[in-house]
């Protein structure tokens, strides 16, 4: 929410002479079916320059895809009386369930760290909205970034945005099979001289469909009936198998 507001302000505050950013997504709705194993979407766009401005001036594009916000609980093991137990924990609220960033160059070459933090761009600028912890939460946040990066839910690809011409750019965004359902946001930033000159945000929806959707609804709307169905399935399968095997031997 904070970020959406911020984007609106950013767009409203654009200087009059700025280049305009136009972007789109190859697919605005991803439907997860039983054979979904992950897919790619393409974020593309163009930088439309002011008349008379030199289009070959250095510019950078950063594409960010954020998943729905979620709570992440990170626990730390400590040695107590010789055994390793979960001792301290930090609950990081409002972290994206998925984060993908592609840029034309490594982020640190595009803009100074203060600007990245200011615009909330890059894994290192990801901050929770609120934290439940008795300690400094920074090591817990670093651990969360490390784990989610390992699970390919958090990704940074320097060089992932390629310019096809002086104005056209494109980036491939992998959507792995384990992503959360919900509303995603595709943000495109145009950087020049270490600062954001233009930005655009497009929503992206990821949802289940077909049988998966119906099973999910069944489980949540009629949990007792769903439980009975699971039990009946197990009982019948167990019974049938014993009948089949008796015949065959």
């Amino acid at each position, binding site marked *: 929410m904070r970020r959406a507001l911020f984007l609106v302000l950013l767009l409203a505050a654009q200087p009059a002479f700025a280049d305009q950013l136009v972007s789109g997504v190859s697919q605005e709705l991803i439907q*997860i*079916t*039983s*054979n*979904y*194993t*992950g897919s790619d979407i393409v974020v593309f766009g163009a930088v439309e320059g002011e008349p008379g401005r030199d289009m070959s001036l250095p510019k950078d594009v950063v594409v960010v895809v954020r998943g729905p916000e*979620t*709570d*992440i*609980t*990170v*626990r*730390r*093991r*400590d*040695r107590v009386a010789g*055994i*390793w*137990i*979960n001792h301290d*924990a930090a609950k990081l609220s409002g972290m994206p369930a998925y984060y993908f960033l592609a840029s034309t160059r490594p982020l640190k070459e595009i803009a100074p760290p203060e600007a990245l933090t200011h615009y909330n761009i890059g894994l290192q600028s990801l901050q929770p909205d609120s934290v439940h912890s008795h300690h400094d939460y920074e*090591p*817990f946040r670093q*651990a*969360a970034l*490390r*784990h*989610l990066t390992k*699970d390919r839910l958090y990704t940074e690809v320097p060089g992932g945005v390629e310019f096809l011409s002086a104005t056209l750019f494109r980036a491939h965004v992998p959507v792995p*099979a*384990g992503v*959360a359902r919900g509303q995603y946001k595709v943000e495109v930033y145009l950087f020049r001289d270490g600062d954001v000159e233009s930005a655009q945000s497009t929503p992206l929806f990821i949802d*289940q469909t077909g*049988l*998966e*959707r119906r*099973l*999910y609804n069944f*489980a*949540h709307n009629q*949990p*007792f009936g*769903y*439980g009975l169905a*699971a*039990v009946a*399935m*197990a*009982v019948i*399968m*167990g*019974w*049938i*198998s*014993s*009948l089949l*095997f*008796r015949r065959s*031997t």
Partner: protein
Amino acid sequence: MEIYLPIAEMSVHWIVILGMGVGVGFLSGLFGVGGGFLLTPLLVFYGIPSGIAVATTLSHITASSISGAVAHWKRRSIDFKMAGVMMAGGLGGTAVGVWLFAIMRRAGQMDLVVSLTYVPMLGIIGGIMLNESLKTLRAWRSGHAPARIHPVNHVWIHGLPLKARFRQSRLYISVIPPLAIGFVVGAMSAVMGVGGGFIIVPAMIYLLRMPTNVVVGTSLVQIIGVAIVTTLLQATNNYAVDIVLAAILVTGGVVGAQFGVRAGARLRGEQIRLLLALLVLAVALKLLWDLLVTPADFYSIGGV
């Protein structure tokens, strides 16, 4: 070869899951254990969220236990009265277990509680069984008559009131010990996603002194009852039962269980007990190892 699980909200290789089902089903047919104490960690290791692994494993336990129980029923090696008494205790235990589950999960100490209770319990049970079966096998091999297993003489058990006759087990004992065993195992199945056969089987042999041939069938019937109730509770309270995952596990499990029962019929009681003892000790050592060895990463993540 991937399939999407609607409740776990992730894709899995269904052949791997099917293989887990077959392997664990075989063991459950062979030993008369549900196999949950192996399947739950396997699923968690594969990446299934632990809550869903705990709840869904119970479907697999139900199916493979039924498949095994039918075979035992044909051999008339089930004491339904004993199973019923233990099940009654089990229902009470399940209710308490669901409550404990919520408390421990809130404190983030699920893993610790599981490990700290499993290690001594599995270690002691495995050790006793290993010792007994080795002694019997050695005596048998040297040509002597196998030494009768003499468990500790539980005078206090015979002093308890509410005695009942269990004809199939040829026992006349108080219903309190089987009720208590059922209660403990019911609580465990809710907390850990295990059927509890690896507790019930030794408890029946060493505490209740039931004949070995009715032990396996009877424990299967008791496990079925508890697993069904726990599945319903997990589905209604936690929405944690993934029916697609369950179907794959069950398909593998029932096939494996049939082979397990057949293999079990060819082995002698002592051999089965020796194998089960080794398996139980292996799980205990693995859990102990995880408690003592310095973890590669001090941080773990839950609830993404």
